[in-house]
């Protein structure tokens, strides 16, 4: 009897460790990028300027890291084909962090060893909050394409391309009341995710200020969650005018499917995480009809720069890029613009000298990117306006009211 108890206790520990180590995967990843850059060094007299990249290439968040790596690579290839920056060739050294703070710091040490002078990353917020402390110590210029939590860029050397979580929550509440004129909202958010709960908290505060009543706030835990029936039943009981989904598109696709199956007809409203929901529904795109979202990038935007990026991405990787790829693409062009503004021509300059120059340069430039026209404030936030989109006949269309 005693033995049996002891064994079960052991098994419990094992069960928990399976759960907590779920994010682990294999260690070694892409170091080839830096090498391929070095081979072109001889051809270009200015030498190679190595941009470090960090993000999850394996593990449950891998979709974001892979998108960033690919988007950045496309920008780098374009820039190199057009003659580089100030005579220098760009190279990307992208390291895997498996969406884990500790591994991300290790990855940062690796890119430093590989000669990276600036950092594009990290992709996800939690690791970014750890790495920004290290880049600050070293004075390295850091720009995260998609780390949206406030503390991800808490130091003066760090900037971002995407919106911050609070700004999305605030913008969503203002949009729902101001533009759509609705006052009864329900929310489904992921309480295990900084992105989702960060937006929700700010949304709740702003909603109160705007006079929007949150009739039902439902949570779920983690991307593993597949069952939203209970939340949907509760929301249906509360009779909201709009359901706010500050979550990523995988969960949103399940919510749309289960909501339709249960016979509900809610109006859904989301943030940039919802981009990709049409692709995720794979053929059931009709389910997303009428879903609204605020986002800086849509792949169906007819603008010329957006379409040329989308086509290059599709040709290289056979899929439509999401906003993470777009943020990374813009991130590389922002680094290019800042390098030009600071007139850096020598890739052998020290990390902190380059950092100091770029930190000053980025605050003075305006970049026309595929995610909008970007300027940066003192605290590193990117100043651009989200576009209101609605899904009509399976494509994103700008909301006109």
């Amino acid at each position: 009897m005693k033995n049996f108890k002891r064994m079960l206790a052991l098994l419990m520990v094992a069960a928990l460790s399976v759960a907590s180590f779920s994010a682990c995967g294999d260690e070694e990843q892409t170091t080839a990028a830096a090498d391929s850059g070095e081979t072109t060094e001889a051809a270009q007299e200015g030498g190679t300027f190595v941009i470090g990249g960090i993000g999850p290439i394996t593990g449950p968040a891998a979709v974001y890291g892979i998108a960033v790596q690919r988007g950045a690579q496309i920008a780098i290839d374009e820039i190199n084909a057009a003659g580089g920056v100030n005579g220098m060739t760009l190279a990307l050294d992208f390291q895997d962090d498996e969406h884990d703070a500790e591994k991300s710091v290790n990855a940062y040490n690796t890119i430093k060893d590989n000669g990276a002078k600036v950092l594009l990353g990290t992709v996800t917020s939690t690791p970014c909050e750890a790495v920004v402390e290290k880049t600050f110590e070293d004075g390295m210029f850091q720009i995260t394409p998609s780390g949206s939590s406030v503390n991800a860029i808490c130091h003066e050397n760090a900037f971002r391309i995407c919106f911050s979580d609070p700004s999305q929550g605030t913008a969503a509440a203002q949009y729902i009341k101001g533009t759509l004129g609705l006052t009864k909202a329900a929310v489904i958010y992921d309480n295990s995710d900084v992105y989702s709960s960060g937006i929700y908290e700010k949304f709740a505060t702003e909603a109160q200020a705007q006079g929007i009543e949150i009739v039902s706030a439902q949570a779920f835990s983690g991307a593993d969650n597949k069952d939203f029936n209970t939340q949907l039943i509760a929301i249906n009981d509360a009779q909201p005018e709009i359901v706010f989904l500050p979550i990523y598109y995988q969960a949103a696709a399940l919510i749309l499917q289960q909501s339709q199956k249960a016979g509900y007809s809610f109006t859904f409203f989301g943030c940039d995480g919802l981009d990709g929901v049409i692709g995720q529904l794979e053929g059931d795109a009709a389910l997303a009809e009428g879903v609204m979202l605020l986002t800086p990038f849509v792949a169906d935007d007819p603008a010329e720069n957006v379409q040329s990026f989308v086509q290059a991405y599709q040709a290289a990787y056979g899929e439509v890029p999401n906003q993470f790829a777009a943020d990374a693409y813009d991130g590389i062009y922002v680094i290019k613009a800042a390098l030009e503004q600071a007139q850096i021509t020598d890739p052998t300059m020290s990390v902190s000298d380059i950092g100091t120059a770029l930190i000053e340069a980025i605050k003075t430039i305006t970049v026309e990117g595929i995610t909008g026209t970007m300027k940066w404030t003192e605290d590193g936030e990117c100043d651009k306006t989200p576009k209101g989109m609605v899904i009509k006949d399976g494509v994103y269309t700008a909301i006109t009211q």
Partner: protein
Amino acid sequence: MFISYLFSGISLGAIYALIALGYTMVYGIAKMLNFAHGDVIMVGGYIAFTLSVTLGQSAWIAIIGSIVFCTLLGITIEKIAYKPLRNASKLAVLITAIGVSYFLQNLALLIFGSNSRNFKSLVSVPVISIGQVTIPGETVVTIAVSVLIVVGLLLFINKSKSGAAMLAVSEDRAAAELMGINVNRTISLTFAIGSGLAAVAGILMCSQYPSIGPYTGQMPGIKAFIAAVFGGIGSIPGAMIGGVVIGIIENLSKAYISSQLSDAITFVILILTLVIRPTGLFGKKINEKV
């Protein structure tokens, strides 16, 4: 809307029950916890997905193909990973099982990528509406299949010769071997059945919650483990009832207590079961000889 909550709980619970059956059978007979079981479910889902969506085969071919593949996979895993450790410590086997679990997850990551895919339901039973309550066809099928499988398994174990061999191995492996029972073959058979059931669970789970990714099997696997412990690990009716009860508790706690705490509540059940009644609802009290 209590009835709606209850039904969505039962349908979730029926999935847990199907998964828990695999855990409980393997534990009852091989006396090991196969933590890779949840990932066999994921493999089952992916095979059905590949056959039905990518290769455009009919639902029945997808279902049968997936069951056959998982059965073979189960036997192979047992042969390669667990059989050499038959006489090793329980901890070694457990760690190997976790290793197999990671292996399957990363293999799926490599082959199918990290993006979760939209799974087309293989169940074409219409929605049933009773008054205000709507019950999706998948729910009905899942419950029916779970009950059929439990009855089938009980008949198999209690009436057939192989079933008797399983019972014997579960009671005393050494004595069973002395009586001429092929222990290795019996354990292989157990893994084959358990993994075949995992395929069924995977298909039904992915039909009900239409998405599949490399980590799909992980959380349901752990919840089903709780269900198996709660029902009494090693007991087939226990796994069924444990699964349904855990599903209902999870959904009702989401609805009436807090949607944020429902996972915590489920894990508290595991701890309480282990403290108050380690043998679970239906588990036999085991008198270990010292």
